[in-house]
């Protein structure tokens, strides 16, 4: 259990003179739900981008399942088992919800250099895709164009895409941002059910959700990891309360 799936070592990133990631060293254990919290501008999304490969770090290494993946592009990391959602839902707006997910299934089921045969009618792609939509709770919207889904449904679709990839590591960048209370509750339920099936990193401002879900929490302030610990330890840490939680919890 205690074997880390993801290891960040001395990760650093500057945007000009602004230090967004400052010598971050962090271990995420296999199977755990690891929350990343911190005030706006702490560099949480930039850190997620460096883990998933969308942003290259200036220094440091990203080790995934004991392999150095620092130089690998996002598509290779995805095929090795990383999947992610974005702070602003990133979907294929012109595709039906089902087709969005079917593409994620397609990415890991044989070659996509097939020029004949109607992909939309392949049960081998559609059945797992439908199952992922079911899991995310939007199976009834399968044939709706993604652009026409509500914000909450887009979030659910993004999650279905990520789940269809059968990831070992799921990166969730503020999945509760911009959706209603009811949808948040449903999402928390879903994530609770997924807990233990895969390793997850959760970036989130909704502290109720974070404390309900996380096994461990890392607090990020101005690009640095202030502390990492259990929810109880983090909540009691006077440094954290002073720097961040003070303004969050009344």
């Amino acid at each position, binding site marked *: 259990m205690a074997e880390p799936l993801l290891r960040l070592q001395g990760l650093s990133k500057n945007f000009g003179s602004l230090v967004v990631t400052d010598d971050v060293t962090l271990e995420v254990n296999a199977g755990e739900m690891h929350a990343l919290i911190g005030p706006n501008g702490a560099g949480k999304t930039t850190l997620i981008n460096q883990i998933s490969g969308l942003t290259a770090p200036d220094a440091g290494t990203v080790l995934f399942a004991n392999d150095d993946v620092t130089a690998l592009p996002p598509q290779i990391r995805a095929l090795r088992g990383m999947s992610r959602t974005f702070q602003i839902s*990133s979907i294929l707006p012109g*595709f039906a919800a089902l087709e969005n997910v079917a593409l994620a299934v397609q990415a890991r089921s044989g070659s996509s250099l097939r020029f004949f045969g109607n992909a939309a009618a392949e049960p081998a792609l559609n059945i797992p895709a439908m199952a992922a939509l079911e899991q995310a709770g939007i199976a009834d919207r399968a044939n709706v164009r993604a652009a026409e889904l509500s914000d909450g449904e887009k979030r659910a679709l993004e999650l279905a895409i990520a789940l269809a990839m059968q990831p070992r590591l799921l990166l969730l960048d503020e999945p509760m941002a911009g959706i209603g209370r009811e949808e948040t509750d449903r999402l928390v339920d879903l994530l609770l059910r997924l807990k233990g099936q895969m390793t997850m990193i959760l970036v989130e401002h909704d502290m109720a959700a974070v404390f309900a879900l996380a096994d461990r929490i890392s607090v990020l302030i101005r690009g640095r990891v202030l502390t990492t610990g259990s929810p109880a330890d983090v909540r009691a840490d006077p440094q954290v309360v002073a720097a961040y939680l003070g303004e969050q919890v009344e």
Partner: protein
Amino acid sequence: MPTALAARAAKPSLPVARQFLLPTAIFLVLALLPVAAALSAQQYLVDLATRVMVFAVAAVALDVLVGYGGLISFGHAGFIGLGAYAVGILSAHGIGDALVALPAAIAASMLFAWLTGIVCLRTKGVYFIMITLAFGQMIFFVATSLAPYGGDNGLTIAARNTVAGWALMKDDRAFYYVTLLGLLATYLFCRTLVGSRFGRVLRGGKDNATRMATIGFTIRRFQLVAYVIAGGLGGLSGFLLANSTEFVSPAYMSWQQSGELIVMVILGGLGTLHGAILGTAAYLLVEEWLSGVTENWQAIFGPLLVLVVLFARGGLLGLSSMPRGRFFGGVGNG
């Protein structure tokens, strides 16, 4: 569970019959046109329609790139020119059979597409437009400097290609049907392509490249394959063009010609394939008609194109579905 899920998942998003109605009608009209032309003794119609179909082959292929792949290639005429020159140069050396000339035309265009595509696809957006334009101009100037093959003046071809020694394409009407066959094959191939696994990845790259990368696709590789395929079909168009005019000229690959192809695709309706055929027909027919009316036909044609782009955003196909959408509330036709 799986059977219930499969049944729901297999539900098609569009009624199949309606989807194929217009393309079927287009090809039916094209198939019957020589008969109508013979009955009304208007032979020039066959020549005009041949010209339309020759360029429609290239336009349909360009629609795969622009309409489905989001790759605005501004050098597509270069592939037409390469295909045409393959026919012309082979003919100048006494090789006048389609069994050699056609594969040579397609292969030359595909090779050029592959070599330049590797470079072009490192760029995006406006830079992609500029670099494809640059390669198009490069091949244009190479053609103008080919002194042994006519240089600026172009090259006359002694006779149309034979097919395994048989002068099949000598007769204009027979050539018409060969061209129609080429267009039909191109259309069916591209229609299958865009619905295939490959086509789905290509379309996904146009919709959201970041998402495609994060689910594990190296989009550029798929775009390169599409570029090479579209290049090859441009070569087919060039093969037909050289045989139809029995002449090749650097003008075939001018940047104006590339621009006209883009206009044809947009005019018909991007991302529809049969729209590209309609757009090519509309463009060439209006050009033909206006140039008969006045010498300064471009002064009328220009504003006409502006109006189409302004008021029919889906091109001619968008125009046909617009009133329905307006008056009856429209059914998910966003």
